[in-house]
């Protein structure tokens, strides 16, 4: 009960902060930034290997957040709304850098999916490094699908690719990532 009341209080505080931030209250904007920036920098970092560039992208995202705060209708969580903006900013950044290339050929997607679980011992930074090493196309589709929870149709629209390309990129990304994790585990812990 106490935790439920805390959530209500937090939501009320957040709504008040948003209203003040809409009116260009700098203090409210700073509080919202302080609350969400660490999470959003991490989101941008999923896509962008360089932390400095990821931060620049995050700042551009927050700039848009505050500039268009009036358009936030309160439908869904505020964090989810900010997060979508960050994902789009990251995709735009990669597009501008011409780092994204999608293989045109569609591979045969096997219905058999390796459902290996992640080995317990792997660190977040190691995992991030493995994701960074994926081809940009694989990486984007994998993060959007596996971590952000987008559907293939949404990914296809956002990345301007076909649904089948999105599916094949995801399949390849998973396969490659699993192989590399296995390889990492072999070299680090001597398992398998």
């Amino acid at each position: 009960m106490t935790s439920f009341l805390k959530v209500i209080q937090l939501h009320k505080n957040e709504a008040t902060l948003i209203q003040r931030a809409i009116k260009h209250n700098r203090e409210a904007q700073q509080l919202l930034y302080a609350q969400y920036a660490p999470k959003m920098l991490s989101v941008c970092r999923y896509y962008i290997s360089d932390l400095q560039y990821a931060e620049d992208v995050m700042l551009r995202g927050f700039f848009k957040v505050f500039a268009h705060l009036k358009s936030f209708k309160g439908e869904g969580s505020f964090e989810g709304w900010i997060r979508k903006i960050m994902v789009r900013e990251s995709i735009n950044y990669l597009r501008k850098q011409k780092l994204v290339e999608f293989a045109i050929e569609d591979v045969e997607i096997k219905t058999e999916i390796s459902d290996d679980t992640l080995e317990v011992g792997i660190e977040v930074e190691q995992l991030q490094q493995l994701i960074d090493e994926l081809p940009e196309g694989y990486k984007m589709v994998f993060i959007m699908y596996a971590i952000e929870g987008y559907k293939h149709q949404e990914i296809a629209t956002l990345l301007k690719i076909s649904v089948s390309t999105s599916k094949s990129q995801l399949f390849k990304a998973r396969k490659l990532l699993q192989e590399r994790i296995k390889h990492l585990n072999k070299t680090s812990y001597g398992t398998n």
Partner: protein
Amino acid sequence: MGQTEFDKDIKGKLEQRLLKPSEHSWDKLSNDLKAIEAKNKKTNLKRMLVAAAVIAALFVVYFNVSKNKEVPIIVNVPTDVESNNEHIQGITKQEDIKVVVETIIEQTPKSTSQKITLPKNADKVVNKIDSEVKPEAIKVELNQLEKTVSIEDQKVKEVVAQINELKKLNKEVTDEEIEMLLLEAQRSIHAQKIMQQSSGMASADVLLMEVETELDQSFRNKVFEAIKSSFGTVKTAVVQRNN
């Protein structure tokens, strides 16, 4: 194909991570926000100035248009006024205005409401008539008109009596004799009218001019109507007597 356990594990690991932004990241964002807000304020100010200028321009244009626009005036005027426009345009003095009023009263007792476009001078004259002609003056003019009408009636009676007398004496009355009687009566009426208008003083020139005028048709008609009715009365009396 949904999220696999592998996907969920990776998501779980990555979601726990929080990355601290650099120390000056907020200052950088704050400066950018200040800049855009200042720019928006300037843009809004410019837009307001442009809007105010447009509104002012529209107001000036509307004011000028409404000022220059000629509004058609609806006035109650006699039917003949339109034909007398040229005459009205030249009238400026108060005496002339009195004459106009008299002419209007004499010529057309019927007034009709109709839309006419008067020239600018006519507007002034109409206003002048409204403001300067006093009701007392109009009353005097109307009294004179009534007197004139009563004189005409009296003369009609006189002429009919004279014709009846001639009938008794000569048994036959020629057209020339009737014409003579009518002319005499007409002259007499004109003379009395002139006397009334010039407060008892008759001008010789005016008298001469009036004598030269033709016999008024309305007066002629009145006389013939009177003779007809008297003839009808006599006829009825004769018929009743014979019965």
